[in-house]
């Protein structure tokens, strides 16, 4: 009898385990575990998953560009029974075969923050309109310079990255360069651009890039930066030469440190994006698919706002108090 009871108990427990597995499992794969942008994204996903009663799995690559790590993460999440996976692709092309396999296994895949190539390799894309983010700071700079002569340095991300190219071209289009659109292939260059360098979105490398640009052309008076760490690096390089007062820096991202830099006058304006929103919407779509089989599709704009304490006529912006309210990081 005792043995039978044990077996019955074991069967019941196993059945209970099975029922537990019925809760919707969704996965989030970021580029790294350490970038505050992704930390915020994870936070947003966790909040929404809790609210929806879903289980959230998370994983990340070891470094930006670690495609193999992301492939492994996708496989592990499919093995873990995830019904939907959100991913910020480190390599927009190389990740595609792994995503294809996951989708073939019936998993909904949503790209967050940046698209895959081709974009329809995922079911949906929830992201900032990076071209628009660039456009806003371009328009801001144009209004601020009001036709004065300009020499521009552009501190980009790294070669070939679609987000870097979209922001870069958006900025130039916003500044009024003709013939540039969201469909322009590769980073455009105009006569006003005297230096283009890769910052890898990193403060140290941004500083080096700016130092070299100033060597090339000491008259630079407008600096476009891919993100605020790069902007902080550029500012350090300018300050070392005593040029920080006469040069305007604009940026994209909207992290808390970045918004504080806007408040302090280090950065004139930045385009703020909303990682919390991206992940929250992603979890919602994932749970919806797990429960009702309804698939999210297409591109969803998760919003972008220009943040600056010095308003320019004709350019809509919010102040740093607003920016600090919706920023991420420390």
């Amino acid at each position, binding site marked *: 009898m005792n043995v039978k009871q044990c077996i019955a108990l074991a069967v019941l427990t196993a059945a209970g385990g099975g029922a537990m597995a019925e809760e919707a499992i969704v996965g989030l794969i970021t580029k790294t575990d350490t970038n505050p942008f992704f930390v915020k994204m994870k936070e947003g996903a966790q909040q929404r998953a809790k609210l929806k009663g879903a289980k959230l799995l998370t994983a990340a690559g070891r470094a930006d560009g670690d495609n193999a790590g992301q492939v492994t993460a996708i496989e592990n999440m499919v093995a873990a029974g995830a019904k939907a996976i959100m991913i910020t692709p480190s390599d927009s092309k190389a990740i595609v*075969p792994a995503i294809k396999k996951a989708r073939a296994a019936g998993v909904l895949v949503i790209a967050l923050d940046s698209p895959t190539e081709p974009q329809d390799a995922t079911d949906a894309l929830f992201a900032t309109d990076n071209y628009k983010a660039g456009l806003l700071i371009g328009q801001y700079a144009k209004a601020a310079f009001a036709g004065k002569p300009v020499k521009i340095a552009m501190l980009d991300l790294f070669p070939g990255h679609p987000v870097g190219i979209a922001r870069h071209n958006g900025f130039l289009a916003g500044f009024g360069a003709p013939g540039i659109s969201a469909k322009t292939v590769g980073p455009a260059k105009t006569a006003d651009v005297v230096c283009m360098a890769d910052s890898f979105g990193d403060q140290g490398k941004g500083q080096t890039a700016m130092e070299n640009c100033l060597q090339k052309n000491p008259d630079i008076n407008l600096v476009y930066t891919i993100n605020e760490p790069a902007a902080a690096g550029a500012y350090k390089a300018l300050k070392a030469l005593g040029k920080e007062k006469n040069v305007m820096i604009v940026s994209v991202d909207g992290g808390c440190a970045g918004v504080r830099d806007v408040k302090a006058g280090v950065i004139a304006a930045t385009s703020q994006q909303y990682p919390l929103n991206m992940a929250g919407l992603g979890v919602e779509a994932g749970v919806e698919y797990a429960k009702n089989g309804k698939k999210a599709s297409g591109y969803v704009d998760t919003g972008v706002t220009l943040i600056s304490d010095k308003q320019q006529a004709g350019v809509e912006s919010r102040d740093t108090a607003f920016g600090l309210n919706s920023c991420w990081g420390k």
Partner: protein
Amino acid sequence: MPPLSKLGPVIALLAACVFFASQSDRFLSSQNFSLILQQVMVVGIIAIGQTLIILTAGIDLSCGMAMALGSVIMTKFAVDLGMNPYLAIGCGIAVTVLIGFINGALVTSVKLPAFIVTLGTMNIAFAVTQLYSQAQTVTGLPEAMGYFGNTFQLGQATFTYGTVLMLGMYVLTWLYLRETAPGRHLYAVGNNPEAARLTGIATNKVLLGVYMIAGMCYGIAALMSVARMGVGDPQGGQTDNLDSITAVVLGGTSLFGGRGSIMGTLVGVLIVGVFRNGLTLMGVSSVYQILVTGILVILAVATDQLTHKKG
């Protein structure tokens, strides 16, 4: 009883498996184990070359970048030049063997430290990879390049041909180190190169051979990476040098050379793979994997150091 340095890795691996099995009902399945094998395939094959080099008291920092260069060469030759895929694969492996030859030649004839030589070739291989590929992923590969990513069923589990190749390579290396004269010489050179030379072993020949065999492993790993990912990846391999050293150390091979085993490395590779898989199944952040790996590495080196002193 075997010494702790030999049993430790197996105990750690088993303990990790028991722990994860208790945490996730999806961990303990043949399907999941075959998945882990697929995931460790590339670093696993790189770690074979790394083990041989560390057994000679050397080290190779260039392995990951050599692998990336090999993968870009074989895929671009096949896609852009329209070369026969098998020939293109051969060219890719030839390039990684060449890098191994350069490493070995500089270590043996110019007597440079392996750490510095391979630091140099690591950077060179990275730069050449980026320049040649223009930092662009290579897609649209011929089918032949994906062969080792193809799968076959064995009961519940789905294995790739690549994992079979990896396990086969471990067995071959085990036999080579155990049963052949060059294999025994390798240990002798690692233990005491001067003594080895005086007993009539051509130490330079052994070293050069080891670096070239390692280079060949990186080329095969490149093919595995291409088969697994379905693309030629110029950004790949960036942490594979440290990952492979981690696996070798976790497997109980001494960084001072001359002591260690190839099967230990396989266990080391699996420990890392099991933690990554298990923690993901549990829903725990991958930072913990790095934390645990760090602790295990220090434990492994400490064990080695203590047993070394006693011995």
